[in-house]
């Protein structure tokens, strides 16, 4: 109790210091570990009614992830970037299919089921859901989808224009609820452009767009979609957007699939500063938000009504299908050398690495897909034997088996030493920390480097083969809480300890420098993320396609590591000719692809993307936490609409 008072006192004190009173020495100190229990927060009565038009009990307030909406009165999602997590993708729009990240399944929304490809992959048909209506009451039919594709192909201002012009020969409505696409060349993954992960090709309401002379310039305000919520109002400054449950919610795919959404209003609000945002959540003015690691700790320690995705350490959401890590620019010396890339991998002590990056809370993956959803079962577990037997050539006829199955256990021990408390079951450890990673073997790394002519100087600093000091500039973005920066910080620390002059280089222009190959090492994803549903790794492997690779100085179209191999090209070609719904064949090819990637290590996979969601359960409960993961937990993801029917009002 006294400890909690101390923290409160400190905060008060800091505020008083604004008035000139600084008595820091009198503040009792806080504690080291994070408390889940917090002080009772007094809820001011006025919070409940401050909103006027939106009765607080019937309203859910969530944070816009992507910031203040720059063009709040423009909902034309087909042109440029439109802040779609303000509620358009997550409430008001429904795509043909969405990925259910919690299970790895596909949720058919506007579609009735999977598409059917012709055997030569030159055409496919899509069945549409019946009984769906646009939020203005007009029925949703095949004509809308056909109109959308025709329009996108007609105007080059649409982002997806080139893609459809390159791929689609014709699109026709077979009947009101069936659409047939004829393709220009075989494409077994064409349907994934309609698969919503965080944006996909959406369907335009024909009856509205056809009235417009220039659909590119059309602002599409008010927004009309087939999702369960419709636009209520928005701030002209873009700081909030309010959505209202449709009276005919039963005519949205969400309503048809899961029943009535519970909150009458949902508002997405913008917060520029995390500290302010936490204060809003502590005072129940914000129900749900994604935070930084320490922001979440602060929220949990101050609030009794807030919870995280997991009830215990590591608290985090670890079912986002991205793998984070380190990406080498293999077009630049010395990163073109496999030995160098492996040496840098073995110079990493993964326990210390994750402790620096995420306080030990990431789930490790030794391969280039994350440890979540279907991937452990389909890939990581089946690959264990291969990983254990995998060796690298250290030189002088010596080999080394780098795989280390004790890494998760060691991370768990570290976390306990920090004071965190969590279950000690094999199942939990595997889910929280993964199955294994690579050994910390600086002596092997040294041998690998010396094999290639690297030397250490008198101060123990590494020199390049030409005798100049080895400097590594690790490129990442300026937002320090993002995982590229977290990985950058951790890797730089590890390599510095190993004797390399490494430094973090933060830039806003990561994409420009990345695409043109003007960097050493980057914190961008070490591999393209998979779709997140089904075992198909086509999306991951295809970015290593040599056909996309451009010389340094030109914008490459593939992954920025600019790595490719003949073996990988063959695997990609085989996969392209495989039916994506043929799981066994897809998995077999996927494993081959991952082996090729691990062997060459064009980027180091470290831990899966983790998010820090904080829910204030004062007004709404039954969130999809780890003990009841009925849906993915984020409010900014497209699937949030499928969570709304399961929420429960506390009646507070």
């Amino acid at each position, binding site marked *: 109790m006294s400890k909690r008072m101390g923290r409160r006192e400190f905060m008060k004190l800091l505020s008083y210091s604004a008035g000139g009173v600084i008595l820091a020495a009198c503040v009792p100190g806080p504690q080291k570990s994070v408390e889940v229990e917090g002080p009772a927060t007094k809820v001011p009565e006025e919070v409940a009614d401050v*909103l006027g038009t939106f009765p607080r009990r019937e309203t859910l307030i969530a944070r816009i992830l992507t910031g*203040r909406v*720059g063009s709040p009165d423009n909902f034309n999602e087909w042109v440029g970037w439109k802040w779609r997590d303000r509620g358009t993708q997550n409430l008001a729009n429904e795509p043909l299919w969405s990925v259910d990240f919690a299970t790895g399944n596909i949720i058919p929304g506007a579609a009735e089921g999977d598409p059917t490809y012709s055997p030569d992959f030159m055409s496919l048909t899509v069945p549409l859901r019946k009984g769906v209506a646009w939020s203005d009451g007009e029925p949703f039919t095949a004509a809308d989808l056909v109109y959308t594709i025709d329009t996108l192909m007609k105007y*080059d201002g649409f982002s997806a224009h080139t893609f459809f012009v390159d791929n689609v020969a014709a699109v026709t409505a077979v009947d009101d609820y069936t659409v047939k696409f004829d393709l220009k060349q075989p494409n077994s993954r064409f349907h994934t452009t309609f698969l919503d992960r965080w944006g*996909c090709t959406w369907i335009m309401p024909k009856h509205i767009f056809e009235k417009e002379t220039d659909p590119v310039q059309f602002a599409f305000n008010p927004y009309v979609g087939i999702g369960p919520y419709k636009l209520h109002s928005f701030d002209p400054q873009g700081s*909030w957007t309010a959505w209202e449950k449709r009276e005919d919610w039963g005519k949205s795919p969400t309503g048809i699939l899961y029943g009535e959404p519970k909150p009458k209003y949902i508002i997405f609000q913008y917060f*520029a500063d995390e500290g*302010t945002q936490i204060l809003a959540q502590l005072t129940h003015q914000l129900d749900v938000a994604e935070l930084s690691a320490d922001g979440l700790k602060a929220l949990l320690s101050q609030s009794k009504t807030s919870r995280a995705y997991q009830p215990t350490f590591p608290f985090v959401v670890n079912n986002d299908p991205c793998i984070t890590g380190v990406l080498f620019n293999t077009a630049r010396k010395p990163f073109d050398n496999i030995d160098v890339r492996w040496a840098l991998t073995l110079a990493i002590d993964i326990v210390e690495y994750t402790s620096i990056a995420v306080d030990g809370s990431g789930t490790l993956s030794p391969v280039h897909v994350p440890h979540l959803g279907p991937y452990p079962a389909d890939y990581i577990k089946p690959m264990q034997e291969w990983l254990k037997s995998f060796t690298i050539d250290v030189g002088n006829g010596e080999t080394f088996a780098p795989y280390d199955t004790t890494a998760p256990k060691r991370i768990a021990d570290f976390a306990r030493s920090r004071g965190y408390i969590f279950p000690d079951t094999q199942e939990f450890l595997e889910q929280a920390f993964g199955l294994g990673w690579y050994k910390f073997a600086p002596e092997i790394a040294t041998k690998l480097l010396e094999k290639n002519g690297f030397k250490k100087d008198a101060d123990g600093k590494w020199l390049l083969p030409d005798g100049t000091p080895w400097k590594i500039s690790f490129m990442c973005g300026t937002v320090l809480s993002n995982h590229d920066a977290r990985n950058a910080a951790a890797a730089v620390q590890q390599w510095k300890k190993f004797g390399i002059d490494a430094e973090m280089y933060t830039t806003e222009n990561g994409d420009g420098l990345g695409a043109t190959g003007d960097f050493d090492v980057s914190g961008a994803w070490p591999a393209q993320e998979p779709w997140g549903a089904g075992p198909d790794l086509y999306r991951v492997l295809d*970015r290593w396609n040599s056909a996309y690779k451009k010389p340094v100085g030109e914008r490459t179209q593939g992954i920025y590591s600019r790595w490719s191999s003949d073996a990988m090209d063959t695997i990609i070609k085989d996969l392209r000719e495989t039916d994506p719904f043929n799981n066994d064949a897809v998995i077999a090819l996927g494993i081959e692809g991952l082996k090729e990637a691990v062997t060459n290590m064009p980027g180091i996979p470290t831990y899966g993307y983790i998010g820090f969601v904080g829910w204030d359960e004062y007004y709404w409960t039954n969130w999809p936490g780890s003990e009841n993961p009925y849906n993915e937990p984020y409010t900014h993801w497209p699937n949030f609409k499928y969570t709304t029917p399961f929420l429960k009002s506390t009646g507070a």
Partner: protein
Amino acid sequence: MTFLKRYLIPRLFQYFLVIWLGITVVFLIPRLTPNDPVMRMIGEMRGRGSTLEPGAMDGIIRDLTQMYGLEGSWLDQYWAFWVRLAHGDFGVSFFQFPTPVNKLIATAIPWTLALLLTTTAISWIVGNIIGGLAGYYSRKGWSRTLDAIAMVIRPLPYYIFAFSLLLLFAYVVRWFPITGGASLGAIPSLSWAYIKDVLWHSILPALSLIILGGAVNFQTMKLFVQNTNSESFVQYAKMGGVTEDRIVSKYVIRNAILPQITGLALSLGQIFSGALITEIVFSYPGLGMLLYRAIINGDYNLIMGITLLSIVGITTAILVVDLTYPFFDPRVRYN
């Protein structure tokens, strides 16, 4: 007539030359940075999970380059910029495509002007009056106390100071709202309820700016007054038995304020750049964040739009000071 020919016309010529030079520099600098708006947009879409098919990338880049009007050489773009400007048009924002820059600025500017004009004016007036009195009565207890307070407040990093105010007044005692320029759900109108709401939300951001800005003005003015206080004309007026209120206002403050007038004009001119950290801490709407995001995203047209305002604002402020300064200080002549 000679004033016109020998002073005003060259001065106006200089005025427009400075504006032209400023604009040209602002036109060039973003184009010199490695930040390419097309790549930024692609990066933004990619970073936010959009599926961009690798095969379609070249086409997307081509389309965006064309849409943004970045096809020709810099000279072509520069010419196109002046042609557009002649029609009072800044073009469309790249990042908020296809929203016109004019509209983005028009939505944000009332917030910035309302907040910063008020706070700049108040902190200048209050800071100078209190600072002037404190300088004149510098041996009194209250003067020393105020001086100590200003001295402690001023070095506090603005972010820490603003967040402390927020903690105190919006969390510990909940008198003011935590965030935003108006309540959630409030739609702009000229109703009293809305205006009241906006005022209520503006108190903490305004307070943070006024206190810090006031402390700066206080300290400067106090120093100036202490210097003026020992000038012969003040001593002479005292010898002449001039009443103290006249000495303070017409002899001490009236003279000490002269350098502060230039300062005020420049702060007013700088308003158009917005107050970024204020906008961050209080999630307050305004030009600061708009400009910052435009810079980060390489949104050339939006950068031009906001900085043009800012350049004209400051240049005009300087011009006004130069033209009116002889009225404040008769010793200074037009030259």
